[in-house]
């Protein structure tokens, strides 16, 4: 193991390291901790110009309560879920199929199609912006959740295909060969043999795509406007306009907006990291 494991170092460095850890993590998260503290301060603290002292009393419940009762925030959050969940399902479903095709079969253009998906996934959003916006308007889907979902599914298919195909390549191929000898149809191989083995990849990819789509801002601004379709990343700017300099509310609103992917991450941490670091080890 590198660096030298702690048990093999001097006693003083062991103590030093153990006390350095919490200090380092607090320093790392300092900007965020400040916002968390703001969000539980009562408004009177701010009107008194007293930003940095400890909250004079805990006002978390009323601040966070107001985010949900006095603003369209619940609407935005709901929109975010209604955009994110169908996208996850759609992109994972499409890429299970594309990944299967590219991972299992050897045919001409296999690598060409694969590289096309990868290249598309790296493209800057702006080169797609005008045509995708026009396409969405022409289809009557501008400012709808569906318009956003369809685009996200299509675009995420690039990354998901890369992921799924590499995962399937690592599966034992003899299993598929054996099934073919048994005379099982290709579709049954997909459904009964490969798909069950893909469960960890599906879990990892779902968590990742959930986070990516929840956090999308650019396409939300390009394809939607107003509370009926906008997700929370875009909605937070109008939330901020509504509350002006009420920093306790702005802080509470930001934390609410950031929370779902954070929960997702802490609940599904193993899958999340497995997904993110695929390929980091050979």
């Amino acid at each position, binding site marked *: 193991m590198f660096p030298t494991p702690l048990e093999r170092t001097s006693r003083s460095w062991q103590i030093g390291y153990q006390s350095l850890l919490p200090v380092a993590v607090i320093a790392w998260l300092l900007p965020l901790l*400040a*916002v968390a503290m703001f969000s539980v301060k009562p408004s009177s603290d701010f009107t008194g110009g007293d930003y940095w002292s400890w909250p004079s009393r805990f006002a978390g419940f009323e601040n966070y309560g107001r985010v949900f009762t006095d603003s369209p925030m619940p609407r935005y959050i709901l929109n975010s879920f209604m955009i994110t969940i169908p996208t996850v399902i759609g992109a994972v479903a499409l890429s299970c199929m594309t990944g299967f095709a590219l991972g299992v*079969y050897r045919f001409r253009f296999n690598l060409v199609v694969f590289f096309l998906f990868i290249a598309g996934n790296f493209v800057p959003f*702006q080169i797609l912006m005008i045509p995708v916006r026009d396409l969405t308007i022409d289809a009557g889907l501008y400012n709808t959740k569906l318009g956003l979902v369809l685009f996200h599914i299509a675009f995420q298919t*690039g990354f998901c295909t890369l992921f799924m195909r590499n995962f399937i390549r690592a599966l034992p191929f003899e299993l598929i060969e054996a099934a073919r000898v048994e005379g099982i149809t290709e579709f049954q191989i997909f459904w009964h043999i490969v798909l069950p083995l893909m469960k960890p990849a599906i879990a990892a990819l779902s968590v990742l795509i959930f986070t990516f789509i*929840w956090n999308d801002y650019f396409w939300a601004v390009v394809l939607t406007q107003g509370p009926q379709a906008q997700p929370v990343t875009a909605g937070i700017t109008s939330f901020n306009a509504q509350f002006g300099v009420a920093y306790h509310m702005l802080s509470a609103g930001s934390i609410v907006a950031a929370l779902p992917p954070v929960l*997702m991450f802490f609940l599904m941490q193993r899958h999340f990291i497995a997904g993110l670091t695929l390929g980091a*080890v050979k």
Partner: protein
Amino acid sequence: MTDTTAAAPHHSWFHRNRQTITPWLFLLPGILFFTLYVVYPIIQSISLSFYKWDGLGEATYVGTANYERLASDRAFTVSLFNNMKWLLLYLLAIPAGLFIALFLNQTVRGIRIYKSLFFFPFVISQVVVGLVFTWFYDPNFGLLNGILGAVGLGPINVLGDPALATYGIIAAGLWPQTAYCMILYLTGLNAVDPEQIEAARLDGAKGWRMLWHIIVPQLKPATFIAFVVTIIGALRSFDLISIMTNGGPFGSTRVLSFYMFEKALSEYGFRMGYGAAIAVVLFFIMLFFIAYFLWSMYQDEKGR
């Protein structure tokens, strides 16, 4: 339609060619979607960059006029230059992430929690990161000036100063990006061959020499991915700029992605052709890196 064909599907055309047809059937929905929303729009954007179009009426062909205008557009030069700053400085996330990963690569009680907390910034949306850092930099009550004041410096208005604003935004972007690189390296470090380390230790290698000659070469796959995601992240920067400065002060924080959006969908009328030309320039910068990534992956595929 006789009973024999239904009872003996084993001789059907589909069955004989199933190994060839099946992959294309499975690819079809994905390829259709991807072509409609990604491949075809790229071609459309490139073609649009030779037109003048307000988004509503008829588009008129103007040849390379949009590109010629770019050459003398100061806002474009500023954006391009800022993109270079983003590219170079964003790469700091890679050594920074490696450094934190080395710091956290221990097995003490509660280390898992510390690793998660260090990774945490990556999970938050860039919009919230932008807001958090806007307040962090605030000249009146921001924590940064609080800290600077405590040691007798400042106050500075990071986002209000054209000379500093871009660096302030890049620093905010480095926060989640470093977390991402850290997690890549933590995974990579897990897989480093312990026998090689022990052998090197017996040979007297330690510290920097050990890191550089034994560890870093084994982390190559992690470094490659860190490099890919960092380059892409740097060239995709939009959210932070839009939230933190909206391109200002005096347009000093614009990058190509932001300037394109501004031109194409500005409140003073849409200039789609000009916007498309900016996007094409950004696309070709990215294409250079994409080509390199694909080439590396191709070498890998051949080696299998």
